[in-house]
């Protein structure tokens, strides 16, 4: 009968499931990464998303415990891309921008790194430290990638700005570079993306900014 036939018909897989099977991401960390990448691209409109993986450290847990700098056993996926708006601005940096009349739109976009995680996966301080330790390396790689893809995109319309503004921006970038070294505008930061997998998952991804070390909160 048609009725029973219909009942056994399975619904279509979701777009994200199709995407994951299409790409052949079989290991959980890649599937997780694909889901977050999908969310970033389509819900938060990020662009030029690149994926990386920090390989896990094979070996038994005894050797792990000896060396705190060794990465964990599990591979950690890492995504990076350009958000449409800045995700994080340090409060002191924001103050500087306000004082000098620099708007967020004037600044060149910044590549932001994202660690996709899911509820119930192993996660320790060692994982966190491993990601931050490798971050400069991945930043360099991503910059090279950006340059090779589009060599002109990194010079934000310097021609279209009036000289006064251009000078202010130049001062800002100088200050930014200095602040990066002194860490007065915060240290390295990334986004921790948490995927809800419980009860089949509802597609929610929660994002948290993680800073290395003590960085004062934005509103205090």
């Amino acid at each position: 009968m048609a009725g029973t036939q219909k009942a056994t018909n399975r619904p279509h897989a979701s777009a994200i499931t199709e995407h994951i099977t299409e790409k052949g991401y079989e290991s959980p960390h890649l599937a997780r990464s694909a889901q977050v990448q999908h969310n970033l691209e389509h819900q938060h409109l990020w662009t030029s998303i690149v994926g990386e993986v920090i390989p896990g450290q094979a070996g038994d847990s005894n050797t792990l415990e000896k060396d705190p700098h060794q990465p964990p056993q599990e591979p950690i996926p890492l995504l990076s891309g350009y958000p449409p708006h800045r995700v994080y601005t340090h409060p002191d940096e924001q103050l500087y921008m306000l004082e000098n009349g620099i708007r967020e739109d004037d600044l060149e976009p910044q590549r932001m790194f994202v660690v996709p995680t899911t509820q119930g996966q192993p996660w320790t301080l060692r994982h966190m430290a491993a990601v931050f330790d490798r971050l400069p390396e991945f930043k360099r790689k991503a910059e090279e990638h950006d340059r090779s893809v589009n060599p002109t995109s990194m010079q934000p319309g310097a021609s279209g700005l009036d000289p006064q503004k251009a000078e202010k921006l130049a001062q800002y970038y100088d200050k930014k570079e200095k602040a990066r070294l002194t860490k007065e505008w915060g240290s390295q930061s990334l986004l921790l993306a948490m995927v809800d997998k419980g009860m089949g998952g509802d597609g929610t991804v929660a994002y948290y900014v993680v800073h290395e070390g003590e960085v004062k909160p934005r509103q205090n």
Partner: protein
Amino acid sequence: MDFQPDLPIPISYVSGRYLLFSIDAVTYLRREHNICGVLIGTLPQIPQQNVFLGLPLELMPEEARLLVDKGVACIVDEAKAHDGMNTLLEEDRRRYLRDLESQGLHVSRIQLDRKERNREQTLKKLEEKKAKAKAKASAAAEAPTVPEEGTSTPSPKNAAIVDLFNAEERSSSPSASMSTPPQAATAITPATSYPPLSTPSPSSYLSAPAVPSSYPLFAHLHSKGYFLSPGLRFGCQYVAYPGDPLRFHSHFLVVSYDWDQQIDLMDLVVGGRLGTGVKKGFLIGGPQKGIDSVDSEADRVDTVRAFSLEWAGM
């Protein structure tokens, strides 16, 4: 003002708690060593009153340990230290009581002096007022262009009132100073027992307090100038203030983890969300080295790594 107590400051160990009874030590530690502790003393008659608490100050084991490791303080078993009370000589006892009485007398003298000074000041003020009123009255009298009774009458009346008060004051003040009772000594309750007892000898110091595994992160943040207080009220282990808690809002809710301790990601969401809700960051961290792999806690403090979380708002 900047009182410098004798170091090491004895921390009283009473039934598992680390307490400070000397207000000088409390202010000194807060001022010089960023240690606040928690005031727990209440009124014996009204123990429910817990808005304004006083001495003693209770220290977390972490705080006590930090001070001992720095050489600023030492731990003294309070019960043992007071064994000497029984063997106190009668003569010493009397001398101590006399001492207390003379201190009490001193205090009441100071209070009396202050009262006297206040009185003189008010008297002077009244005098000035009276002079002014008189001047006004004479000015009013000299102004014949204003013949109305209404305006001229109040001034003399006022002056009379002032006079009346003044006379009363004047007559009462000498009698008051004369009738001052032969100075009842203010009763003094000393918070510390070190004058009758000698300060404890170094051989009687207890060993450094045992601390929870979160101590390295505590010491790490303290070394960066943060003031730390217990975090129960905020659902975390410590609350970190960038300066004295009386002057600053706190920056972080702090939770410590061991290097390979599993962190439930839900806890990060909970902490991050709570922190953002109360305008704070959520800080997690811990030492890279386990307690077994190092000689002392101090070695672990240097290996602490911390991460602060905030809600990304997306």
